[in-house]
């Protein structure tokens, strides 16, 4: 198993229970370097739980999570960040009382410095300057709102900012939790454009319950139904496979297209 160094993140036989309910049942899923994958399923299928196990919110009862060949099952979210695993949240998660640029600076600062108390105490935030931050703001079209308070941004802008905050840290793996929830079609397209720029540069996993929006973006897809990963593999083939047709399309036909 360990010989497979191509896999950058690998979850094996993950099981997570809440009380008597099995939220995630023996799920195995892996991502290759610079692959873009999606995890789909109806609400309550366990995809967010599985996602949270990858990011360190939850610890699984059974199974292991590997980063390259390192067993990170018990790692805290903070130490996963050190390895280069960055996530975003379902509800756009930014710091509303800071300026847009300061949000970016905090993300950048952590990624490039040892953010212990002494360092953070003696560094001035306005001196956290980098071409990378500017470039990132430019790429994501945030330059003109850099000095605005994040709390005054729209949901779509915040979502883009959150993705920008993740990208500026230059992560190895980027995990996006329902990045399109609550966005208008225009905003979704903006987000998609932003993500397309990262194709081939980053390993990305997107959790969504609608595949239609990201079908042509992702290379690999995992389908979850009631805690079980019923299929995983190349996008077209997986979506057209017998089992997915029967179990996923049937349960979620209206949701998906």
């Amino acid at each position: 198993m360990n010989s497979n160094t191509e896999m950058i993140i690998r979850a094996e036989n993950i099981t997570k229970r809440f009380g008597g309910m099995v939220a995630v049942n023996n799920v195995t899923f892996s991502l290759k370097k610079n692959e873009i994958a999606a995890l789909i399923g109806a609400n309550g299928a366990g995809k967010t739980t599985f996602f949270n196990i990858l990011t360190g919110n939850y610890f699984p009862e059974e199974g292991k999570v590997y980063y390259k060949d390192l067993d990170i099952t018990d790692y805290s979210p903070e130490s996963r960040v050190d390895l280069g695993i960055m996530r975003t949240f379902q509800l756009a998660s930014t710091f509303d009382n800071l300026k847009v640029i300061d949000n970016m600076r905090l993300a950048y600062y952590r990624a490039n410095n040892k953010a212990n108390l002494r360092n953070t105490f003696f560094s001035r935030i306005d001196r956290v300057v980098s071409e990378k931050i500017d470039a990132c703001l430019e790429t994501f079209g945030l330059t003109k709102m850099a000095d605005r308070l994040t709390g005054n941004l729209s949901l779509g802008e915040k979502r883009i900012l959150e993705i920008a905050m993740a990208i500026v840290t230059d992560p190895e793996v980027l995990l996006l939790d329902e990045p399109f929830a609550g966005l208008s079609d225009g905003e979704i397209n903006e987000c998609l454009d932003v993500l397309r720029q990262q194709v081939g540069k980053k390993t990305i996993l997107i959790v969504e319950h609608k595949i239609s929006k990201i079908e042509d973006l992702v290379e690999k897809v995992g389908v979850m139904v009631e805690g079980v990963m019923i299929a995983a593999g190349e996008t077209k083939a997986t979506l057209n496979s017998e089992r997915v047709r029967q179990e996923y399309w049937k349960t979620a036909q209206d949701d998906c297209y």
Partner: protein
Amino acid sequence: MKRFFKSETGIIITFALLYLLKGILPTAFLTEVVIFSIYAMGCSFLIGRLGLTSFGQPAYLAFGAYGAGVYLYYFGHNSLVAIFVSVLFSLVLNMLVGSFMVRLNSSYFTLCNQAFCVVTFFLFQKALVKWTFGDNGLLLISRMDPTPIIDLTTTKGIYLFAFLMAVAVWFFYQYLMKKSVFGATCLCVKDNEMKLRFLGYKTFNIKWLAFVIANTTAGLAGALYTVYFCMVNANIANVNTASEAVAISMLGGAGTLFGPLVGSFLFIGLKDIASQFISHWEVLVGLLLIIVMLAGEKGIVGSLEGYLEKLKEKRTLAKPALTKEGGL
């Protein structure tokens, strides 16, 4: 205008004005205002920047007060050394207490601090009565020698010293809140602690340091109180006074730089004036607090800053030339 208030010159001018008030207002009143504003500063920082409301501030005030008191009573005669020792003493205690307290969230933090305050009061009043003399307290008037440079045994000397301390505290907090990365992370703890963790910051450490800084500031205020009153008794840790610091922080504007100063000024002023006419002068503070809170929950300075911000926005809208400004 806003930038002016936020910069260093803002602090200097504000305090220079305050110092000039000495000619109009009694020194005793101003001394109390200055010391109380240092005390409120820590509380205001915790509420406004970290979202941690503590109803146990008198305990941390008492740490400093007794640090200085015990030093002067049992060990030395120099008030300056006493203040220095008591700041160190409360620093160490707060590091210890903080590592327990900041594990708690929101209302549990508030209430456990209050519980801790009750325990501290009991310690100083009953358990350690042999050394602290409980309600009678430590009388230090004969134990304090005149100090060189600034004589802390005179009313003018202690006012000047408290005043200089306040300026130092303000400069420190200005750096902390507006400039340092740490200050920004503090604000993020209040905003969205989860996200901060997933950016890789250790939020426990951030809260711990903020707690230590804020409550050591309260300790400094306590030491100044001891030296100013030439005595300290258990009443300083009385939990009944716990709401004062919180009320002042909210009145002035929690988390703002000048909020604690404005709050203390109003609070002590109301106390001194209104208590001559009605016995329950706290009623007035309560009413004032409700009115200020209903006007936008930002306190006096917070509302003022918001208003200035709007003015500035209007002006920049009229003239689209944007100035780039760093910092928070």
